[in-house]
């Protein structure tokens, strides 16, 4: 187990953490698994790609555009697919189907617009690697790592310290009571969707840079889901820990048994984890509310 693998694993894990936290934000506030998250990632990564090709700007403008696009798509999705369900206090199965359908819709639009082809982001850096001692870190991995943690740190600060952050947490805890306290529930749900979409956009760009860009890129969202199951559904810190753990495990598996079988083993790890410790690392098992 060389430090090189660990470093690569943590870099990969930090992207998974972005996905898992974006997923957990929605899970907390509306108590359902948002399966549209993957297609939202793809769609905003494509918008970032078009922006990069058209303007030839560097990585950071592209990231910002993708995050904005993801956030707006998130808000749009909330309006199209979930607003009426919230008003109706629909049972969670409707949210579920709505999110799957919304995901199919995003994916269909991307497929119609881009075709089933593969795209590559333009190369953003001249020097590809940074070496520290014997460890070689690819430039994109380093940027992925640093950006992810800065964004996650900002998110935690926002949720814990600011007024809107407290509002989001209050609505997540109990929407009815929050609304009686004068909190605008719809606005805060919109904000949560914006934040989750922005995180999705960021992870979409990173995944697009790391692999290639294609309409089914969003299937990688499964990694984020697995990470949040390992970490404990609905827990932010658990999602981050689970994601980093998953990144390291996956890099190790790829190194020793090849990338083809890696999904099989990550699935088995998740299954064993659920059998032994179903509440996840963070230990906050969300029970079905009556």
């Amino acid at each position, binding site marked *: 187990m060389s430090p090189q693998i660990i470093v690569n694993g943590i870099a990969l894990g930090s992207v998974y953490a972005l996905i898992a936290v974006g997923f957990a934000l929605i899970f907390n506030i509306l108590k359902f698994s948002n399966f549209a998250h993957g297609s939202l990632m793809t769609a905003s990564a494509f918008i970032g790609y078009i922006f990069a090709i058209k303007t030839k700007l560097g990585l950071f403008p592209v990231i910002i555009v993708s995050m904005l696009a993801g956030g707006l798509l998130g808000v749009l999705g909330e309006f199209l697919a979930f607003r009426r369900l919230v008003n109706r206090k629909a049972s969670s199965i409707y949210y*579920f*189907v*709505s999110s799957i359908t919304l995901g199919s819709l995003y994916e269909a639009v991307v497929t119609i617009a881009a075709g089933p082809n593969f795209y590559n982001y333009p190369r953003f850096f001249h020097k590809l690697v940074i070496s520290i001692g014997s460890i070689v870190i690819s430039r994109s991995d380093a940027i992925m790592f640093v950006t992810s943690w800065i964004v996650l740190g900002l998110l935690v600060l926002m949720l814990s310290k600011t007024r809107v952050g407290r509002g989001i947490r209050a609505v997540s805890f109990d929407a009815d009571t929050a609304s009686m306290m004068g909190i605008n529930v719809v606005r805060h749900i919109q904000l949560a969707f914006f934040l989750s979409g922005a995180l999705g956009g960021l992870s979409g760009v990173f995944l697009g840079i790391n692999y290639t860009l294609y309409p089914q890129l969003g299937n990688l969202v499964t990694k984020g889901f697995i990470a949040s199951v390992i970490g404990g559904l609905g827990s932010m810190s658990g999602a981050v820990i689970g994601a980093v753990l998953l990144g390291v495990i996956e890099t190790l598996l790829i190194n020793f048994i090849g990338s083809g079988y890696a999904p099989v083993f990550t699935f088995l790890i998740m299954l064993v984890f659920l*059998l032994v410790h*179903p509440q996840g690392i963070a230990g906050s098992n969300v029970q079905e509310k009556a």
Partner: protein
Amino acid sequence: MEAYLSVLTFALISVVSVCGIYVLTGLTGMFSLGQAAFMAIGAYISGMLVVRLNMPFALAAIIAVAGSMLIGFIVGLPTVRLRRDYISLVTLGFGEAITALLNQSVQVTGGAMGFSGIPQKTNFTLVVVSVIVSVALVGFLKVSKYGRQCIALKSDELAAKAMGINVPRMKMIAFLISVGMTAYSGVLYAFYTTYVDPSMFGWRKSAEWVIMVFFGGVNSLTGSIVATLILSALPEMLRFASEYRMFFYSVLVLLIINFKPSGLFGEFELSPSHISKLFKRGHKNGAVNVAASGKDQ
């Protein structure tokens, strides 16, 4: 004529799998995003038993269904005790794992190139008989004690538990029934097309089935079946618009969920007494509705 028959056969095979999904989603309120993977398991196991070991078709089909139910038991075991979100997330991971496994074990399954050379054993009669049996099975299940327990836990797990229903056990039974039926539809599929490859069984396929059930009405078996027939036959007829197919599907279903959440058919079920009422016009019109609502209790 031949082409229409094949479209109809594919649609009917879908009806078998959607009957399974109905038990899981319509009756119990759980979602599986790896259901297509169970279809793949049924197709591959039966296909390989027949091609490699020269086993008779019927025996291979039984082994394939039993084998996939065993795998379903292992997948379901950790999830039935937990919140219903877990089963969707775990089956999603399961689907990815199965696709990876099928793609990797090239010597056994043919990998991404697919597995071909399966003899064509499925004919239209077999498919029709299968559909009748599975619809009848699910129809009886719905009005049986088990079905009512499933419906109870779907609307409120805690209350169902308080009434003495063994919730994890019922969830597991529903999951296994649906896995078995989906695997069987995989057998039918493999022995009809004579060729399967891993890309046919992604989670999109599972999602499409769930969408079909919701399109027709999540509380109505009749609705689910009609929706399946329409939604799986229509795109075959409209080949030219295949790119837009998913787009229209999604828009349609979003509209239904937002504006008519009970689906096209609501709680309506077609029952024998119902059909006879339909032919005897001039009867009181209300009788039909009474029969329909009484049936659902």
